[in-house]
């Protein structure tokens, strides 16, 4: 919202207060300053002139020649604007004058006619943006007077943020009330005395609905639709309101002046009693913008003999609109229920200065004053006839008295406030109150619907005390240096992967339907009903797609092939594990390893990864992990595994299928994995199993078995471990030879007994026992060569 220093000065004497100080005040009162413009007089030697004559330019048809009386003299001036006639009163820049931005005006020859200066527009005088032509001044402005005297452009314009709870501050009066407490300067009452001179023709009624507490109107006859007064045009333009004509401008003026929205009807288009009710479903109304609106029973409407003529507080109707030919007016000033106005304006997406004020709540005692000010500003400019104000009010709204312990102020704020401070603040804010030795009783004024509870008043006191005048104390919580499992898990994963040259990424949580299907067709995605665009209509059901996209992006744009990981939520339509009524969400880790990296190893060769690199990195994170082969969409037929930790599934891993690789258009194979971080505990992962050291010599066997292609070496190792339960064992694979016909697996067993040295015989027995057991359990054959006991 924009406010003007000169306008505020109508309500509180602040002309002589420095604008910097006012900025500080506004900010400390909670009005965020979005921008500020300081206007200084930007022109010199401009006088008021009267156009005596206008005639054609002999050599140009886009301009005309005028004769202008500037009091002391009559000048011939060439002018390119066409929006004025003979007798117009206009600002004239004389020869040797300066207009906006120091631009100098001199006598000059325009196609053979000497032009003695310039007739100015509002923009040229830095008043407001107006390119419609020259600025026409009121008829009774004195010819020859110094324009800078009748019109001073020294001013400050602030654009401020008003929080949604402070509807009462959405006007110059509202801001002035807040400043009044800050500067300890009283608000001017600006009483208006009206002297009605016509009878009311139209009856108004606030209706049976509880959503209109009061409906007031005034009627006006004998007026001209024309430009509004220059001061009004300046003020409205400065606060960003488009000037249209006097009727529209004056309603807008009152709104920005005191915060009461008004609506003007063409009285001659009304036929009976004007009243208020809720619309019926499917009732229609053609609004000012010439659209026929289908109404709902939530919409509050104004009716004329029960026919809808306006959407209350939101937009006027087309059929009762004020036009160029309007002769008589009915001006509405009402108090509508804020929730009702909000629902209608949001549903129809019609948001106006008026609707915003109604929905934030206006002063319920302001309606009469609104009409008074409208008449007052109108009759200042034109000699109008006007009726008395007719009013239809329900039992008036009133706020309850609230009482609370004075100690609560200290209990919440941590400062002691003196009774004097409390009393002065409340009285300057016009909040009726009683302060006793231990209690405060208050009653909110008609414009402050936000002061309902003790806490509301305590906040008000805190604000006027000044937040920056509070002391600071530092309490310490109850979880000293314990960040919790969730955070430590994340840290554990990040540190391991980052230190192994994985780059962490953060990608958006959305996916289109197709990309979810590639890796998790079994999951129903969570859909966004009002998506930003089609690619973001679902939440992702896996992290793999984002990882591949990031890989591809950097491969294509930066020619780099790196490892990446992401830790974030994935979502699906299933039930949430902990909470009711929300979909399933799993805090997951995904990572990606390309076959070739652009990084080099210590030989200077590109790092080459294979399925073992994938398993190694997973074992780095989860040393006890188990792999279990499974077929999975998007994955290589053989390289696709479920990951288990203590027999609980934690995720899956594998190689991207060649088909998927080609559909992503990638030349590099990718290894990918995803785990649900909620499915393991950190203490399970970090378990280190100490193996006691035997002090006896070891015996060692290298065995070679002929096995099938799908044989899993880890099973063999685990099994042999069970055959040597009381020994310190080190069992490893040293060879895995494969050709088309056969596969040989070389296994090295190094074992020591904890209690004795094995004799040659015992050693031989152990070898036989192992070979026999392994052959019979797995139906595999020991190759004759290569088995010797040492």
């Amino acid at each position: 919202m924009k406010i003007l220093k000169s306008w505020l000065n109508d309500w509180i004497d602040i002309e002589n207060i420095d604008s910097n100080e006012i900025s500080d005040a506004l900010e400390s009162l909670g009005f965020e300053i979005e921008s500020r413009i300081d206007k200084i007089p930007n022109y010199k030697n401009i006088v008021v002139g009267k156009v005596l004559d206008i005639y054609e330019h002999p050599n140009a048809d886009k301009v005309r020649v005028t004769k202008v009386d500037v009091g002391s003299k009559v000048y011939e001036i060439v002018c390119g604007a066409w929006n004025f006639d003979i007798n117009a009163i206009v600002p004239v820049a004389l020869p040797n004058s300066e207009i906006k931005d120091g631009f100098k005006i001199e006598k000059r020859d325009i196609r053979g006619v000497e032009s003695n200066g310039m007739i100015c527009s509002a923009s040229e005088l830095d008043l407001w943006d107006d390119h419609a032509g020259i600025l026409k001044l009121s008829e009774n402005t004195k010819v020859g007077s110094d324009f800078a005297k009748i019109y001073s452009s020294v001013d400050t314009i602030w654009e401020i943020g008003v929080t949604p709870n402070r509807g009462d501050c959405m006007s110059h009066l509202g801001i002035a009330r807040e400043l009044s407490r800050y500067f300890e300067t009283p608000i001017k009452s600006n009483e208006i005395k009206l002297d009605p001179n016509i009878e009311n023709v139209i009856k108004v009624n606030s209706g049976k609905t509880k959503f209109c507490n009061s409906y007031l109107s005034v009627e006006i006859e004998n007026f001209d639709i024309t430009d509004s007064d220059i001061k009004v045009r300046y003020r409205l333009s400065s606060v960003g309101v488009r000037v249209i004509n006097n009727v529209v401008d004056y309603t807008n003026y009152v709104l920005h002046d005191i915060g009461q929205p008004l609506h003007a009807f063409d009285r001659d288009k009304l036929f009976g009693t004007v009243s208020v009710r809720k619309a019926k479903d499917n009732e229609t109304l053609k609004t000012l913008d010439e659209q026929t609106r289908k109404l709902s029973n939530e919409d509050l409407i104004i009716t004329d003999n029960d026919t809808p003529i306006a959407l209350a507080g939101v937009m006027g109707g087309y059929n009762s609109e004020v036009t160029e030919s309007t002769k008589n007016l009915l001006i509405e000033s009402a108090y509508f229920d804020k929730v009702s106005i909000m629902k209608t304006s949001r549903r129809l997406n019609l948001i106006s200065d008026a609707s915003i004020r109604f929905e934030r709540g206006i002063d319920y005692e302001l309606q009469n004053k609104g009409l008074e000010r409208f008449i007052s500003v109108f009759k200042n400019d034109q000699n109008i006839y006007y009726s008395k104000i007719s009013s239809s009010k329900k039992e008036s709204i009133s706020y309850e008295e609230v009482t609370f312990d004075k100690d609560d102020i200290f209990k919440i704020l941590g400062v002691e406030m003196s009774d004097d401070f409390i009393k002065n603040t409340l009285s300057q804010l016009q909040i009726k109150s009683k302060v006793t030795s231990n209690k405060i009783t208050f009653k909110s004024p008609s414009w402050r619907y936000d002061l309902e509870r003790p806490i509301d008043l305590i906040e008000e006191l805190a604000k006027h005390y000044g937040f920056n005048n509070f002391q600071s104390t530092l309490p310490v919580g109850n979880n000293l240096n314990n960040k919790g499992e969730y955070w430590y898990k994340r840290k554990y994963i990040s540190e391991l992967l980052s230190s192994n040259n994985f780059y962490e990424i953060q990608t958006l949580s959305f996916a289109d339907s197709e990309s979810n299907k590639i890796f998790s067709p079994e999951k129903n995605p969570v859909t966004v009903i009002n998506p930003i665009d089609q690619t973001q209509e679902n939440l992702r059901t896996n992290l793999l797609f984002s990882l591949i996209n990031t890989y591809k992006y950097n491969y294509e744009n930066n020619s780099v092939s790196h490892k990446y990981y992401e830790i974030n939520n994935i979502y699906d339509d299933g039930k949430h594990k902990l909470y009711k009524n929300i979909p399933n969400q799993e805090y997951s880790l995904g990572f990606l390893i390309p076959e070739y990296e652009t990084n080099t190893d210590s030989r200077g060769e590109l790092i080459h990864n294979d399925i073992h690199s994938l398993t190694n990195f997973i074992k780095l994170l989860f040393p006890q992990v188990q792999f279990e082969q499974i077929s999975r969409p998007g994955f290589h037929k053989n390289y696709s595994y479920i990951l288990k930790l203590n027999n609980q599934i934690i995720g899956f891993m594998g190689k991207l299928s060649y088909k998927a690789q080609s559909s992503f258009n990638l030349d590099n194979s990718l290894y990918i994995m995803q785990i649900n971080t909620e499915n393991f505990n950190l203490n399970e992962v970090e378990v280190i199993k100490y193996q006691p050291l035997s002090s006896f010599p070891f015996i060692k066997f290298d065995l070679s078995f002929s096995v099938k292609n799908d044989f899993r070496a880890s099973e063999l190792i685990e099994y042999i471990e069970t055959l040597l339960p009381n020994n310190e064992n080190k069992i490893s694979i040293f060879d895995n030879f494969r050709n088309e016909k056969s596969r040989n697996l070389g296994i090295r067993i190094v074992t020591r007994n904890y209690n004795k040295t094995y004799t040659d015989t015992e050693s031989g027995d152990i070898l036989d026992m192992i070979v026999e057991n392994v052959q019979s359990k797995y139906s595999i054959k020991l190759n004759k060569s290569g088995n010797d006991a040492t």
Partner: protein
Amino acid sequence: MAELNFDKVLASLRLRLDEVISENEFDEISKEYLGKDSLLSDERKKLSTLSKEDKKSYGEKLNQINKSISEKIIKSKQDFIEKKYSDLEDSEDEDVTINWVTKKGTHRHIISQVMDEVVDIFSSIGYKVAYGPEVETSWHNFDALNTPDWHPARYESDTLYTNTNLETLLRTQTSTVQIRHMENNDPPAYIVAPGRVFRSDQLDATHSPVFHQLEGLAIDKNLKFTDLKGTLEYFVKQFFGSEIETKFIPHFFPFTEPSAEVLVKWKNGEWLEILGCGMVDPNVLKHVGYPEEFQGFAWGVGIERLAMLKYQIDHIKNFYDNDIRFLEQF
């Protein structure tokens, strides 16, 4: 008596020394000129055959020349070593401005790093990390936070909904975690909740449909507005440095009262908003059934905003494009 021609000896020594190419030659030269088989040594042997006077004067001469040769050799050796190192250092003149090892960052995303940093600061004064779902009920995102259906604040954020009854949504603020935490834990509560929030904005330089906030909540007996101020001032100083100035200005949030915004004075003198905070509204505590003697404060801070300020990052889009040129910088 035939004396040795010392000049000749010295001249030959000079030539010899000039030709030295290796440090160990100096020992040979010493031997050659002063050793057992040297000319000087031969002369000395002859001394016994001379008269007493001649013996004395020629002896002295020999001593002098001996000393002179010895000094010349030592001096020459010193010069040689000096020159050797000096030449070596002359030959070593790399252009140190060339970066052969380019900086590749920590490999952690800057958003995670900033979240970590903020969490560390609050953890050091007794806060634990809490988390809650990102797809939330409207009740947790709005109603429980004192923002009923008709409240204007409910329309200020463009919310993404996930069901047609508007009962579930993508949380617009991490404040939802306050409610989840208090529903499941008795007071006192000292938590921070970093995480993702969502708005209906297309990704561009200044907007993102996904961004990160960190919510803080402190509920205990006797927590006051002055404690809120002290806590957040502590955070700001830890994060931006102890020189930074802060101020608190009144604001409005449906779930806190009084509410404030914290501004910091930036290097160019501009005051920038960095977080919103306030005393938890009594209605919120009532919604989660906390006993009346408990009260406290809450705050929310934008992680991207902190990162952008601290590292002068220009576009929010950079965080989510994951361009390696961006990732490598942190």
